[in-house]
Every structure is written in structure tokens, then in C-alpha cells.
């Protein structure tokens, strides 16, 4: 009911929105294209070719006949240009901040260039603020509190039941009910596709990670065992309550480092066919929903069926990405609850198994490619951990190696040339 209400308001604003869009961003189309494609006109960027090809081109074009000092100096141009290209635009750093929108959705938070355009737009924006903070937010907060409270209380009560079968079936119902309340609390409008591929017992469900809300969205439609670190405070209380009624896997911080222990616990859980499928996010961190980054291979080493799931949020209704370096969990939840809505699509992909002769990394990449293809996301090989860590020197050494090989090739030719003099 609430969601229909929100939808109606949004449709009303849509008319104004299109007008605002065209006024606000004269030439925005050009700008946004430049944001996602190599910046034309700022520097002349060529399509990516191999190091050898580029160097040959560069040397061939130099006019002076003298070959020795010149080719070293000219080679600098190549690396210099490559370096500045990456400063200008690279695939990775832009994944760790929110996506920019083509047209404004009346939320100041999603617009980096807010200027006063007209009185009409400001009035509409003001109305939007009133609606969002005055009507939607209180309702949602109430729902959220109810949902979490019920979850904690009921699961704790369930823990006292002696009969295991009864406890199990009741726990499923309770979990589903509470998650549904939480979903209503966020006004999440979720479309599930291909439900026949829903994860079954004894498997692992993997998905791309944008926000902690991913968990609620998936748990809305089925029961999963969560995997994660033990937290303190409110999260810790919820975790302890949940584990009383169904088998979730919470790790102590010290155990996380011990990969074998982790793998063993996961394997044991998966081997028991009565237990629910495990939900894992192999990226290890939140990415901004425009791309899928490297999947850590740990979850793919366990011998069982993997059920990939792709989640894609519609950025026009609210920005779902949790930028953990910018704001904490509570502020993030409040932001979510004061957006228009959380609209997303969930695709259940057909189950995959590790093939003969395929190692964990290749399997992980295969799954990642399938998820990226379904969700319309960019498939990147970079590690999401780069959000916080620096790139290893090994990559720089690889480039140096490549260049040395090219030089060596030239060196042989030059030696021959010298001998002839």
C-alpha cells in the first residue's frame, strides 16, 4: 500500500522531472558520455593495443634517421601518455563512488552539481523533501523497528522449543515474515526473475555485492544461511538471536584469518542436505553496482553446486551503494529510508558446477562473467580490495618486463648492425 502511494507521487513528479532534466543539463548527454567513455578531445586516446604495436608505431613515425638515443626518448612518450590516460579515467576508482545519473531524481544527494535552476524546480524539490522526510521516513522507521524487534523476540523464543522439526519449519516462516516487513520498511520493489533456479539445500548462493541490504532482498524470497563476522551491538544481538533458530555461520574475527577452518565449516554445512543454502558475496566488499569485481576463490574451492544470483538496482529511485568510507551503517539506513524507494531486479541464474580440469580461479571467473552478463554490469578483473589497499608492485614489474623484452629484440638487431660497421 505504501509502495503504491510512493509510486503515484513519483509519477506526478515525473512530468516535472523531464522538463527539469532538459533545463538542467544542456549538453549533459555529452558530459555523461564522456564520463563513461574515453574522454574525447581532452587527450587523443587510442584503442588499447599491445605494448609492442604501440612502440613500433611510435618509432616508425619519428623522422630522424638516428636510431639509438631517439628510441629511448620516444618510448617515454608512450608510457607518459598511458599514465596520463589513467589519471584522466580509469576503470577502478570510479567503481567506489556512486553512479552518476542521466537525469536528476530530485534527491540532492545524487547530484554533484546542484545549482539554482528555477523556482518551480526548487518548489517541487521542497515538496519532495516534505514527503520523504515527513511521511515516508517515520512510517518506514516504525516498520523497521517492528521488523527487527519481531525477529529478535521470535527467534529467541523459538530457541526454547525442544522439537527440532517444528523449530525448523517455524523458523523459516518467521524469518520470511520478518524479512518481508523489513523489505516494506525500505519500500523495496523487487522483481524476481527465473525463480525456478532458486538455490536449493546443500548449495552455495553467490551474488554481486552493493549494499548490506542485498541480504534482506535475497532473504525475502527464500531462507539462507548467512556467513559473516561476529559483530557487537545491535548487529551482534540480531546475529545471536538468529542463530538460535537456524544454522547461520558466524565467525570470530580471529577465525577469519584461518582459511582452512572457514572452508571446513562451510563444507560441513553444505554436506548436510537438510541445511539451507549458504549465501556468500565473493567480492568481499561493496561495489557501486556498475561492475562486478574479482571474486575471491575461497568459496569456489568447496565441492558443491553454485547458484549465481545477479542483483541490479535502479539508480533513479535512490542510490543503494554503501560507501563505507563515507558514512556508517545507521546513516546509510536513514538515507535509504528517505530515498524514494529501492527498486531492484534479481535474476536467479542456472546452477553451475566446477568442471573437470578447471581450477577455483577459472570457475570463479566463469561465474562472475555469467553474473555480469545477466545484470548488465561491467566485468572487471581488478580486486575490490583496491578500495583500501594499494596495487601490488608485481603489476609494475610486469610492464617493465614487457618493455625489456621489446628492447632486447631491438638490442639484437642493433648488435648485428654494429658488427657491420
Amino acid at each position: 500500500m505504501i509502495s503504491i502511494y510512493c509510486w503515484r507521487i513519483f509519477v506526478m513528479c515525473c512530468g516535472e522531472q523531464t522538463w527539469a532534466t532538459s533545463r538542467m543539463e544542456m549538453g549533459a548527454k555529452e558530459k555523461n558520455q564522456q564520463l563513461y567513455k574515453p574522454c574525447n578531445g581532452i587527450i587523443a586516446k587510442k584503442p588499447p593495443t599491445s605494448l609492442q604495436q604501440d612502440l613500433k608505431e611510435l618509432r616508425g613515425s619519428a623522422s630522424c634517421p638516428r636510431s639509438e638515443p631517439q628510441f629511448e626518448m620516444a618510448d617515454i612518450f608512450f608510457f607518459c601518455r598511458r599514465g596520463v590516460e589513467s589519471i584522466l579515467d580509469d576503470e577502478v576508482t570510479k567503481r567506489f563512488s556512486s553512479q552518476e545519473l542521466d537525469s536528476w531524481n530530485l534527491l540532492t544527494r545524487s547530484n554533484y552539481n546542484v545549482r539554482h535552476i528555477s523556482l518551480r524546480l526548487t518548489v517541487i524539490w521542497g515538496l519532495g523533501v516534505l514527503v520523504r522526510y515527513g511521511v515516508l521516513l517515520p512510517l518506514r522507521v516504525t516498520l523497521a523497528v517492528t521488523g527487527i524487534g519481531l525477529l529478535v523476540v521470535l527467534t529467541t523464543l523459538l530457541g526454547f522449543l525442544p522439537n527440532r522439526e517444528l523449530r525448523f519449519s517455524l523458523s523459516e516462516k518467521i524469518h520470511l515474515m520478518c524479512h518481508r516487513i523489513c523489505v516494506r520498511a525500505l519500500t523495496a520493489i523487487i522483481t524476481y526473475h527465473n525463480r525456478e533456479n532458486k538455490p536449493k539445500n546443500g548449495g552455495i548462493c553467490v551474488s554481486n555485492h552493493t549494499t548490506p541490504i542485498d541480504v534482506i532482498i535475497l532473504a525475502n524470497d527464500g531462507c539462507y544461511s548467512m556467513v559473516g563476522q561476529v559483530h557487537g551491538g545491535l548487529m551482534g544481538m540480531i546475529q545471536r538471536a538468529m542463530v538460535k533458530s537456524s544454522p547461520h555461520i558466524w565467525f570470530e574475527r580471529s577465525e577469519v584469518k584461518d582459511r582452512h577452518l572457514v572452508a571446513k565449516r562451510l563444507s560441513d554445512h553444505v554436506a548436510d542436505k537438510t541445511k539451507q543454502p549458504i549465501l556468500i558475496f565473493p567480492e568481499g566488499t561493496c561495489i557501486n553496482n556498475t561492475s562486478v569485481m574479482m571474486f575471491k576463490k575461497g568459496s569456489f574451492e568447496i565441492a558443491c553446486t553454485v547458484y549465481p544470483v545477479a542483483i541490479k538496482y535502479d539508480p533513479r529511485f535512490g542510490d543503494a551503494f554503501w560507501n563505507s568510507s563515507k558514512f556508517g551503517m545507521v546513516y546509510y539506513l536513514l538515507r535509504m529510508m528517505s530515498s524514494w524507494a529501492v527498486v531492484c531486479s534479481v535474476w536467479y541464474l542456472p546452477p553451475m558446477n566446477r568442471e573437470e580440469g578447471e581450477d577455483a580461479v577459472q570457475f570463479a571467473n566463469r561465474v562472475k562473467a555469467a553474473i555480469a552478463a545477466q545484470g548488465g554490469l561491467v566485468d572487471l578483473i581488478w580486486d575490490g580490495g583496491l578500495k583500501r589497499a594499494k596495487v601490488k608492485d608485481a603489476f609494475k614489474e610486469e610492464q617493465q618486463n614487457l618493455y625489456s623484452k621489446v628492447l632486447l629484440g631491438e638490442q639484437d638487431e642493433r648488435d648485428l648492425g654494429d658488427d657491420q660497421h
Partner: protein
Amino acid sequence: MGAFQSSPGQPEYVDLKEKTGFSISQIRVLHTRFKLLGHNGETLKRDHFNSIPDLACNPIRSQIIEAFFDRRNFRQNGEGPVDEIHFEEFLMVMSHFKAPSPRMIEERESVRREKLRFIFNMHDTDDDGTITLEEYRHVIDELLSLTEDLGKDTAKDIADAAMREVASTSMAHMEPDEFFEGITFEHFLKVLFGGP
């Protein structure tokens, strides 16, 4: 993250457009990138550049980053390094890489000189106007890896050979004891393009 963020309005962009030759939309794109790299701060520091993974792969990344913090590239006739740069300085350095627009022949020459000056400054790390053997060797070291095929001596040899060639072209007469100071900018131009 207040309700309304300040952004350079049109007049400031116009000013920057005059100085650098970028169009307003290009300046806007660069400004977005500047803010993204600097986490919405007013200035960029060297650390901000270090967080770009693609750049980290580049063998001469430290030279490229230094180039952004080198006053000689700000077109204000200054010298020496700075610790942080503002958007205007960022634009100035970027403008060295601007694709040349179809212009008169003389302008094209001066544009070419400017771009080469940028590369020259990248080699000349102590700001004395000449590239000495040491500086040149340092750049080659960065480019090559320390694998066994190409030992440290090979890098030295390449650098020495290069310097000898330059010396022989630029100084017709050289006494056996005379010490070759280094490549000046004029020599650099001559070597690369065989012209005045």
C-alpha cells in the same frame, strides 16, 4: 555533504578556458575527475595519484606524478616542486596533452616545443636545465626490469650510448678531457627532430 554544494560557476570556467584552451564541457569533466581523485577536497596530493591502479602498473609512474607537482609545468615560469595542487594547476598540466587543433604552422611549432618541454622537465629532476647522465640513466632504470636477461649494466650501456650520440651531434668539437655537462633543451629538440 550539505544540501547545496558549491561548484565553479560559468565565469571561473571561462577564465580557465582562456588559459588552457579546453572547452567548458571538458573542464567540467576534468573537474569531476579532480574531485573524485581528491575525495572532494580542494587540492590533490601525491597520495591521491597513488590510488589509481592503472597508474600503479606504469613503470615511470613516479615521474608522471612528479610532473603534476612540478612548477615548471604550470606555465607561470616558476620552479621547484609543490606538495599539493589546485584544480587550475591540474588543468595546466593536463593541457600539455591536449590534442592539437588545426592551427597555423607557427603555432603548431610552439605547441610542439611546449609538449617536448614537458618531457624534458620529466627527465630533468634537479631543475638545472640539463639532463645529466645520471638523470637519464635513472629514467631508463625505471623503464627496464631487473630480470637476468637485462642486467643492470645493460641499462647503463644504453644510457651511455645515448649520451655519446647526443654529445657527438651537438658538440662538433670536444677535447678528450672535456666533461660533457648534459643535454640541454635545445640539444633535446635537435636530437629528436633534427631541426632548429
